[in-house]
């Protein structure tokens, strides 16, 4: 464990607890410090990595003989005109090209993955296999049919359609309960992962505990002395 590791561990633990301080219920200078640090360095990272991508795929691609990629660099520079007060319309050409390609990439396959495959996966034998499989498949088939009627908007929901949509809505709330629980597991895992990162290897544990105590104490002192509001940036 070098002195550098120690400094990194202290900064990481302190800033992390400052970020958690939003749970105190009031925005504070501590939270602002953590937030602005993250935005600054995070935005810097975005610039670095995207400039690298432009160099690697564009410049290297052109050097490797794929001359058409020059068009990519030229169009890219044209995009930058978007913020120009007078010539912002120049950016429309590259945006039109990127949008067209983007829509095509998304739309050409989504009819399969999001529509046909979803229907096909639901069309399964309902009377073969063990009891659990039969129960699962019947439930899925009925749920998909009833829930789908809930999403009809250009027809008045009357009679059997209304019943079907209502049953579908109740089924959806059961699904929401299960999905909520799965989501909680995921978020809890992130929180646990964060704390593990700050507490591994073991020599970091006292630093973590110290950061918790210091940040909590600072919060309460600032709050009680009224400095919390005065030192927090206004939006």
């Amino acid at each position, binding site marked *: 464990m070098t002195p550098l590791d120690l400094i990194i561990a202290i900064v990481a633990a302190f800033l992390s607890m400052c970020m958690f301080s939003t749970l105190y219920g009031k925005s504070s200078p501590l939270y602002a410090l953590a937030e602005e640090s993250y935005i600054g360095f995070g935005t810097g990272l975005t610039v670095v990595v995207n400039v690298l991508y432009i160099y690697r795929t564009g410049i290297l691609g052109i050097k490797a003989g794929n001359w058409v990629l020059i068009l990519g660099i030229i169009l890219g520079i044209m995009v930058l005109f978007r913020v120009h007060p007078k010539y912002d319309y120049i950016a429309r050409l590259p945006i039109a090209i990127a949008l067209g390609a983007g829509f095509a990439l998304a739309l050409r396959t989504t009819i399969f993955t999001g529509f046909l495959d979803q229907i096909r996966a639901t069309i399964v034998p309902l009377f073969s296999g063990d009891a659990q499989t039969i129960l699962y498949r019947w439930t899925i088939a009925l749920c998909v049919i009833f829930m789908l009627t809930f999403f009809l908007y250009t027809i008045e929901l009357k009679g059997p359609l209304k019943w079907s949509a209502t049953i579908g809505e109740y089924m959806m709330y059961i699904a929401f309960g299960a999905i909520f629980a799965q989501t909680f597991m995921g978020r809890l895992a992130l929180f646990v992962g964060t704390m593990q990162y700050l507490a591994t290897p073991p020599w970091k544990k006292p630093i973590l505990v110290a950061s918790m105590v210091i940040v909590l104490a600072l919060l309460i002192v600032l709050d009680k002395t009224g400095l919390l509001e005065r030192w927090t940036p206004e*939006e």
Partner: protein
Amino acid sequence: MSSPLFTIPGIIEGRFLGLLLNVILVLLVIYYMREGRLPYMRRVAGLDAIEEAVGRSAEMGRPVVCSYGIAWDGFDYWTVAALAVLGYVARLCARTGTRLIVPTGGSDGSLIVRPVAVETVRTAYLLEGKEEEFDEKDLPFLSGQQYAYTGGYIGILQRARPGAVIMLGSHYSEAMNITETANAVGALTITTGCYASNLACLACASDYILIGEEGTAAGAYLSEDPAQRASFRAQDIYKWIALAFLILGLIAINAGSDFFVRLLAT
């Protein structure tokens, strides 16, 4: 994956039906747009909840906070509908003299959307004859970063203490932070969910939720734009097609024929 029913030379195997469905959908949208008669749409219950929320804020003399999502891909499907509903909320606020705050940002895509949101709200105030009350500073661009935007959004809620918070468009994991803070400051929360797990959490955490497409349907209903109405008419037809495929497919496969499964794979 089961083998397709047939293949057509020149078309890649297993992609004919997808191509056909894409083409028919284009033709359906064009047909319903051309007809000149605005296709019927039922009024989505969420709109009544929005009216009640703005009315409640007006009575309490507290502002309304309404956001159009973080628009990850700029003008995506959710954001366009959210802007239509934002216009409706803005008109209600202008009519009732309630301050409207629209936190914008959360992604680089939202940079392109913000000017249109400003114009949407300005037009709403204009239509209610209150253009002088419109203040562009109430549509702050908080940040291009998702969580810095969330920090700013939460800061606004904690200081402005709104009577209602209406979160439209595509919100992601930051929606939970915002909804919980909105609840903590006593605001009535109306949210929309654009992916399954967000929807489930927001169904629990908010007072009212526009489930999935109800948000975009509300946008189409309000905008009375023939193109959006035609789109929903075409979508509903395809949902009927999906239901038909499902029911016939289930009957067929249980009668021993995998015709529909293979048709869906052509």
